[in-house]
C-alpha cells in the first residue's frame, strides 16, 4: 500500500505507530515523604530530625540501601536497586511545585492542570500534551488512564480511554451487547456520542490487540491496586497499542501518624509494581518512560505522633530506557534549619514542569510546550534523559 494514497491523518497515524514512544505519569496522591524514601543517611541531622521514624544504615544488613554513599533507598525499595545499578532509574530530590500550597487538593490540581497557582484551568496538561500530535483524537488508545475516575490531568478536548482495569474494560453481556451499545450511541451527539464511540472503539481495539498478540500475564506484580494497574498497562503497551501518554495513580501517602508501617507497606507496593512493570515490558521498556510524582513533600522533622506533616519539596522518580539513571539529580542544600523552606521543609529546587518538560521534549519529541505549561519558563536542563 502506497502511503501517499492515504488520507493525511493516516500518515500521521502510521508515523505514530512506528515510533510508539510512551510517557507514563504516575501520581502518588497524598504527599509522599521523600526524606524516608531517598534518605540522606550520612547527615547526622537526619536522625536528629527523626529520632523515632528515621531509618538506620549499617553495612551488610537489610536497612537503608546505599545508592551513592550519600543517599540511600528505603529498604522496601530493594526490587528497584538493580534498575538503579543498570542506569534505568533516576531520582530528582527537592522537586515539586513552586506554589507553596500545603493543601493536597490545590497542589494536586495545580500539578494536573500544569498551572500552579491558577485555579479554574479547564483541562489537564497531559491532554494538552497529546493534542500536540496532529493525529490526536484519531485513536482512543493514544491516551489511557487506569484510574477509577477520568483524572483531571487527562481532561480536555482530546478523547481518551479511561478504564478501571483491563478486566472491567469489556461488556459483561458480551460482544452482542457491545454491538447494540454501539448502535444505540451512534445517534448521540456531543459527549455521550464521542465517549460512546471511544468506549466501543477501545473495547474492540483492545480485544483484537490482546487476542492477536496475547502476551502472557507476568506473575511478578503481586497484590495491590497500583501493581495491578501497571500489569494492565504493560499488557496494553506490549500488544502494540499506540499509547502516547498513560496515567496511573496510587493514594494513601498522607502519613501524619504511624508513618513507619504505612510507608513501608506503600513503598513495597509501589517499588514492586515499578520493578515488575520494567521486567514485564522486556524490549518494549526502551520505548517507555515513567515519571512518578507527588503533590508536595513532608516536614523534615517528625511530629508528635510518629508521623510527618505537610511540607514542600518532594522526590520525583524517572524510570525507562532513555533515562540517564543511577544518579540523584536536583540541588540538595542539606538539612540545616536555615536551608529549609520556612525553616521546616525541604525546599523545591527543581520545578516539576522542568522534569516533565524534558520527558515531553526528549522522549515524545514535543518541544513547543508553551500551551502545555503556560507561563513556565524552563531553566537549565536537569539532564536526566
Amino acid at each position, binding site marked *: 500500500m502506497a502511503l501517499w494514497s492515504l488520507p493525511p491523518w493516516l500518515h500521521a497515524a502510521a508515523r505514530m505507530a512506528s515510533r510508539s514512544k510512551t510517557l507514563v505519569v504516575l501520581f502518588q*496522591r497524598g504527599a509522599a515523604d521523600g526524606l524516608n524514601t531517598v534518605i540522606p543517611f550520612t547527615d547526622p541531622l537526619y536522625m536528629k530530625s527523626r529520632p523515632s521514624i528515621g531509618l538506620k544504615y549499617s553495612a551488610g544488613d537489610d536497612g537503608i540501601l546505599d545508592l551513592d554513599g550519600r543517599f540511600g533507598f528505603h529498604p522496601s525499595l530493594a526490587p528497584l536497586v538493580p534498575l538503579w545499578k543498570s542506569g534505568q532509574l533516576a531520582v530528582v530530590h527537592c522537586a515539586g511545585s513552586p506554589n507553596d500550597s500545603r*493543601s*493536597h*487538593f490545590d497542589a494536586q*490540581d495545580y500539578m494536573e492542570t500544569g498551572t500552579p497557582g491558577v*485555579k*479554574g484551568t479547564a483541562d489537564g496538561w497531559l491532554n494538552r500534551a497529546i493534542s500536540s500530535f496532529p493525529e490526536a483524537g484519531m485513536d*482512543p488508545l493514544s491516551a489511557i*488512564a487506569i484510574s*477509577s*475516575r*477520568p483524572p483531571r490531568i487527562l*481532561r480536555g478536548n482530546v478523547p*481518551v*480511554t*479511561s*478504564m*478501571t482495569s483491563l478486566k*472491567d*474494560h*469489556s*461488556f*459483561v*453481556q458480551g460482544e*452482542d*451487547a457491545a454491538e*447494540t*451499545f454501539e*448502535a*444505540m*450511541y*451512534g*445517534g*448521540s451527539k*456531543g*459527549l*455521550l*456520542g464521542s*465517549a*460512546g464511540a*471511544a*468506549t466501543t472503539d*477501545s*473495547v474492540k481495539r483492545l480485544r483484537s490487540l490482546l487476542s492477536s498478540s496475547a502476551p502472557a500475564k507476568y506473575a511478578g506484580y503481586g497484590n495491590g491496586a497500583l501493581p495491578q494497574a501497571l500489569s494492565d498497562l504493560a499488557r496494553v503497551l506490549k500488544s502494540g497499542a499506540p499509547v502516547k501518554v498513560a496515567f496511573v495513580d496510587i493514594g494513601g501517602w*498522607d502519613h*501524619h*501518624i*504511624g508513618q513507619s*508501617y504505612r510507608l513501608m507497606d506503600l513503598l513495597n507496593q509501589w517499588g514492586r509494581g515499578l520493578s515488575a512493570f520494567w521486567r514485564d515490558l522486556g524490549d518494549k521498556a526502551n520505548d517507555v518512560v515513567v515519571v512518578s510524582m507527588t503533590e508536595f513533600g513532608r516536614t523534615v522533622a517528625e511530629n508528635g*505522633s*510518629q508521623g510527618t506533616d505537610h511540607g514542600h519539596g518532594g522526590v520525583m522518580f524517572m524510570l525507562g530506557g532513555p533515562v540517564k539513571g543511577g544518579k540523584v539529580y536536583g540541588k540538595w542544600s542539606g538539612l540545616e534549619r536555615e536551608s529549609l523552606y*520556612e525553616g521546616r521543609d525541604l525546599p523545591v529546587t527543581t520545578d516539576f514542569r522542568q522534569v516533565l518538560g524534558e520527558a515531553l521534549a526528549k522522549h515524545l519529541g514535543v518541544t513547543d510546550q508553551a500551551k502545555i505549561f503556560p507561563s513556565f519558563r524552563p531553566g537549565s536542563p536537569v539532564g536526566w534523559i
Partner: protein
Amino acid sequence: MGVQAYLAEQLDPAKLEDGACDKAVERCPILRESINSLFMEYPQPGINLFRPDLRGKVLSAKENEDAYGRIFSMVNDLAAARLTRIVGSRRQLYEVMVDFWFNHFNVAFDKNGVEWLVGSFERDVIRPHALGNFRELLTAVAKSPAMLVYLDNNDNFADPNFKPVPDPSMMAMGSGTMMMQNAPGKGQRINENYARELLELHTLGVDGGYSQKDVVETARVFTGWAVAGLSSDSAPQPVCFKFKGWHHDANAKTILGRSFAPDGEKEGEEVLAMLSRRPETAKRIAFKLCQRFVADEPPALLVGKVAETFLASDGDIRETLRAIFKSPEFLSAEHYRTKVKTPLEFVASALRALDARPADWGSTVRALETMGQPLYRCEAPTGYPQTAKAWVSSSSLLGRANYAAHLFDASKGTLPFSLAPFEGEAPGGQALVLGNAFRVLLNGEVSETTRKALASEREGLDTGKLAALVMASPDFQRR
C-alpha cells in the same frame, strides 16, 4: 398530579408520609450514634482518644490493619444508609438537596480525623438546613467538627506575639483605614485552608472579587474556631465546636473593604452573615442550583433571576428553588432531558425505576466507587462535579452498562425487585418486553436510534438482558 403540584408537595417534605423509608433507615444504627460513641466503638490505633484502656497499647501489624478496617467499615454503613434514603424516600427533592449541600460543603471521610465526624455532619448540619436558610446552613457548617477538621481550621491559631502594623500602601491610598499587614514567615501560625475555601467554594466563588489579603484577614477572623474534645491531653469530653479565645487574633480585621472590630466569636458570625448576603454568593449559589436542575451551562438570565430571589429572601433555599421551578426555562424544550446523570443519579434512577429494595448495598457502594463517585469519599473540597464533561468517559459508560447487567443477573441470587412490570401478564415476546422497558425506564420517551438498535437485537434474550440494555442506552443516561 402535574409537575408543579408535585414540586409544591416536594418542597414541603415534612408533610409527606415516609414511614416505610423511616423504618428501613432504622436498620442503620450508625445514623444514631454520637461522635463520641463512634470514637469509642471504632478506636484509632495510636490515638484512642476515648479509650484509656487502649492507650499506649502496641498493636501487631494485623491488629493495626483490623482496626483501620473497622474504621473504614463506617463509610460503607453510611453509604448504605444514604442509598436506602435516596432510593426509598418519598421526599425526593429533600434528598436531592441533602446531596447538593453535602457536595457544596464537601467533607471527605478519607481525611485523617474526619471519619468519625461525617455522619454527624450530614445528620446535624446538612439535613436540618437543606431546605432552610443559607446563612444558618453556612454558620452550622462553619461550626461543625467535620468542617473544622477537614479544612484545618482546628489548626488555625493566632500568633500570640503578633502585633499589627499599618500597611503603608493603604495609608498612601488615603483610605483612612489602618489595614493590618500580615508579615508572612514571622511566626504566623494561621492556617488559611478554611478561609480560602469559605470564600472560593462556600460563598463568593473564585471570581468573587476577593484578594489574597482578604483570605488572610478571614483566616485571622476564624482563629480560635476549633473543636473541643479532640485532644488526647485531656480527659474525654464531648466533641463539639468551641471558640477558643486564647487562640483568637484579637486585632481588628478588614474583609472586602468592611472593617470588623475585635469581637471574639461574633466577628466570624458577622463575616458569615456578610458573605451570605453578597451578590457574588447569590450568583454562585443560583448558578450551581440552576446547573443542578436545568443545564450544565444554565442561561444567564435565569441565574440572574434566581440570584435576585436568593438575595430578596435573605437566602431562603425553598424560595430560591421555587424561582427555578416556576421559571419558563425549567421545563423548556431546550433544556428538557439534556442533563447527563452523574453515577449517583444513574444508580438512584435505576433502582427507583425498579422499585428495588436491596438487602445488601455492598455491590452498589462498590459500583459507585468503580464509576468514580463513592459516597462521602470525594477528597477535594470542591465536591463532585455536576456536569457531563467530568463524568462521561469510556470507563463510566462501561461501568453503567455493566452495573445494569449485574443488576438484572439473577444467576447469583434473587433479584431485589420484580420483573413483572417488564413482562406484563401474558407472554408477548421481546417486542412487548422492550415496550414495557421503555415505559418503565424511560417514561416511554425513547429515541429512534435506540429503538432501532434494540429492535434488531437477536431473539431469545431474556427479560433481564433486554432491560439491562435499555438501562445502558444513551436515553437512560439523560435526565
